[in-house]
C-alpha cells in the first residue's frame, strides 16, 4: 500500500504517525511546500524573539526516520489526477498513491484593498517565511500596521510590539477578537494592549495602502479618511483553504474539501483533514471549516485509521472552543459567546481579575467563558460537547468539577 499525504503540519503529521502505528510495512510519503515542520500557532514567538525556528518544531527530531516516512519537502503539488491515482508536482514529476490524504491547510486571505497587492512590505502571517520576513523587516522600522484583530492579528501585533515597534491594529468589528470574545472580555484585552503601546482602532475599514516613491508601504488610509502611518502591514483578515490542487477534479468542494465523518472526500481513497477540510461540526451540526489545532490532529488520526481500513468515525468534531493568553491574561471559551435570543439564560460571576460567563438553554450549557482563572474549564467544555443535563446542578453551576460527574470503570478510565 502506498499512502501519500500532502501537507506536513498538524493534520498531515498526525495522520502519518497514526498510519505508521497501524501499518508497519507500507510506504508513507509526505509532500509539503514547507521544508521545515513547525507549529503555526507559535510564529509570533519567532517574530518576538522568544523562540527560534528549531523551537517551533512540534515533533521529535528523528520523526521521519523513526517512522520510516519519505518526506518530499519544499515541493508544491500542482494537481491531483484521481483516475490515475496520481499527483503532479510543480516540477512535473508524478507521484502515485493508493490512499491519499489532503492536509494542505489554508493560506492568508488578502482582501481587495487598493494597492495592497502591488505594494512592498505587506505580509500575511501563516508560514515560517512570513514570520522570518516580518521579523527581518521589523528591524528597520518604527511603526507597523496590522489589519484584522483576530487571533492571528493580535499575535502579530504582540510579536511586533516585543521588538519595540509601535503597532496600530485596524479592526472592522466593534471590538477586537470579535469571533472569540464578548464586549467585556475584549475590552479587558484592549485596555491591556493599549497600556503596552498597541493602538487599537475598531469599526475601521482599510481603504487604500499608501506607498512611497520606491513602492514601499508608508501607511494605510481608512474609509473615513484617517491615515495610519506604518512601514509594514500584516494582513490578518482570515484564511482560505488550499484547494487549488484539486481544481478540475470531481472532488466536492464548498469552502474547503467536503468530507464525511470518516474524513473521506466525495471520491474514494481521497481523504482530507485539518484546515483544508470542511466537515459536520458538532456544536452547530453544520458543514464547516474547523480550523483549530486539536481537530486537525484528531481528523488526521481518523483519516489514517480509515485509510488503513479500520473504519473510524470522528465523533467529537467540536470546533467552537478557543484558548488564548495575551500579555499574561488568559481566556478559554466554548460554544456561544453571547445568548442568541430570550430562550437562553446568561449567568456571570466576576471579580477584579476573573470573569466567568455561562449560557444555558433548557438546563444545558451552550456557552462558557473563563477569563483570568482557567483551571478546570475543560469540565465545562465537556458539558457543552456532550449536551449534559444540569437540572440538578444549577445551584452550584460555577463550581462544577469532575467530582459532580465522577464515573470510573474497572480500568480506571473516567467517563461522563
Amino acid at each position, binding site marked *: 500500500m502506498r499512502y501519500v499525504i500532502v501537507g506536513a503540519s*498538524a493534520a498531515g503529521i*498526525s495522520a502519518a504517525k497514526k498510519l505508521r502505528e497501524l501499518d508497519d510495512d507500507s510506504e508513507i510519503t509526505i509532500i509539503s511546500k514547507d521544508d521545515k515542520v513547525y*507549529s503555526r*500557532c*507559535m510564529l509570533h*514567538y519567532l517574530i518576538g524573539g522568544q523562540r527560534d525556528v528549531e*523551537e517551533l*518544531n*512540534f*515533533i*521529535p527530531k528523528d520523526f521521519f526516520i523513526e517512522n520510516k516516512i519519505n518526506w518530499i519537502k519544499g515541493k508544491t503539488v500542482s494537481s491531483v489526477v484521481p483516475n490515475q491515482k496520481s499527483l503532479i508536482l510543480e516540477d512535473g514529476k508524478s507521484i502515485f498513491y493508493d490512499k491519499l490524504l489532503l492536509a494542505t491547510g489554508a493560506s492568508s486571505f488578502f482582501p481587495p484593498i487598493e494597492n495592497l497587492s502591488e505594494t512592498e512590505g505587506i505580509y500575511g502571517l501563516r508560514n515560517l517565511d512570513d514570520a522570518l520576513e516580518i521579523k527581518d523587516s521589523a528591524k528597520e522600522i518604527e511603526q507597523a500596521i496590522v489589519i484584522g484583530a483576530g487571533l492571528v492579528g493580535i499575535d502579530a501585533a504582540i510579536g511586533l510590539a516585543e521588538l519595540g515597534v509601535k503597532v496600530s491594529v485596524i479592526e472592522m468589528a466593534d471590538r477586537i477578537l470579535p469571533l472569540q470574545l464578548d464586549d467585556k472580555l475584549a475590552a479587558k484585552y484592549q485596555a491591556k494592549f493599549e497600556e503596552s503601546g498597541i493602538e487599537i482602532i475598531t469599526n475601521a475599514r482599510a481603504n487604500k495602502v499608501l506607498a512611497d516613491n520606491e513602492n514601499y508601504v508608508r501607511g494605510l488610509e481608512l474609509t473615513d479618511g484617517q491615515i495610519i502611518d506604518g512601514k509594514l502591514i500584516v494582513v490578518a483578515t482570515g484564511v482560505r483553504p488550499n484547494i487549488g490542487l484539486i481544481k478540475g477534479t470531481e472532488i466536492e468542494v464548498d469552502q474547503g474539501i467536503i468530507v464525511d465523518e470518516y474524513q473521506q472526500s466525495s471520491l474514494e481513497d481521497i481523504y482530507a483533514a485539518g484546515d483544508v477540510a470542511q466537515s459536520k461540526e458538532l456544536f452547530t451540526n453544520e458543514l464547516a471549516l474547523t480550523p483549530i*489545532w*486539536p481537530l486537525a*490532529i*484528531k481528523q488526521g*488520526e481518523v483519516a489514517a485509521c480509515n485509510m488503513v481500513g479500520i473504519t473510524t468515525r470522528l465523533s467529537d468534531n467540536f470546533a467552537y*472552543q*478557543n*484558548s*488564548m*493568553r495575551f500579555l*499574561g491574561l*488568559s481566556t*478559554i471559551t*466554548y460554544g456561544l459567546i453571547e445568548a442568541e435570543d430570550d430562550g437562553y439564560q446568561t449567568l456571570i460571576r466576576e471579580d477584579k481579575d476573573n470573569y466567568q460567563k455561562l449560557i444555558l438553554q433548557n438546563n444545558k450549557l451552550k456557552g462558557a467563558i473563563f477569563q483570568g482563572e*482557567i*483551571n*478546570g*474549564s*475543560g*469540565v465545562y*467544555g*465537556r458539558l457543552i460537547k456532550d449536551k449534559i443535563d444540569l437540572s440538578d*446542578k444549577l*445551584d*452550584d453551576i460555577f*463550581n*462544577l*468539577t*469532575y*467530582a*459532580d460527574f*465522577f464515573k*470510573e470503570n474497572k*480500568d*480506571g*478510565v*473516567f467517563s*461522563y
Partner: protein
Amino acid sequence: MERIYIDRQLCEACKGCMLACMAKHNGENIDTLDLLDTSNQSANLIEQSSQGEVAPIFCRHCDKPECVEACMSGALTKDKETGIVSLDQNKCAGCWMCVMSCSYGMINKDTNANVAFKCDLCKDREKSACIENCPTGAIELIEVGEGRA
C-alpha cells in the same frame, strides 16, 4: 501500563495525597512543606461535588489523551511503553489548549509560570508520592492492559 485507580468511598479527603504531590514538586517532604505558600501546587485534586461528596481526581494518562492531541508545541507526549502522559515545561508555550481539552480538569496552569502543570505519575520515583501518602487505600496503582480504554 499503570493507572491510579480511585476508590472514592475510601477517600476521607485528608488531602495527604495533595500535600505529598506539592512536596514532591518542590523537592521537599511533607514535614518541611511551607503550607502558607499558596504557589504550592498539586497535580491531582480532591474535589467536592455540589452534593458535598468528595472525589479524589487523578490524571488518567488516557489511552487517547485529549491534552496531547491539543498540544501544538510538542510539549505533551504519551510514552508508548509506560503509557505516561508527560509534559515538558521547557517546550510548553502556555497556550492552554490542553487545559481547554481535558474533560476532567487534570492539566492546569502552573502557579509559578505561564506553562502547564500535570501529573507525571512520579516516574522518577519507585512509588507515586500520592499513593504513598494515602492512609485509607483510596488510591492505588493498577496494571491496565494496553489500549483497553
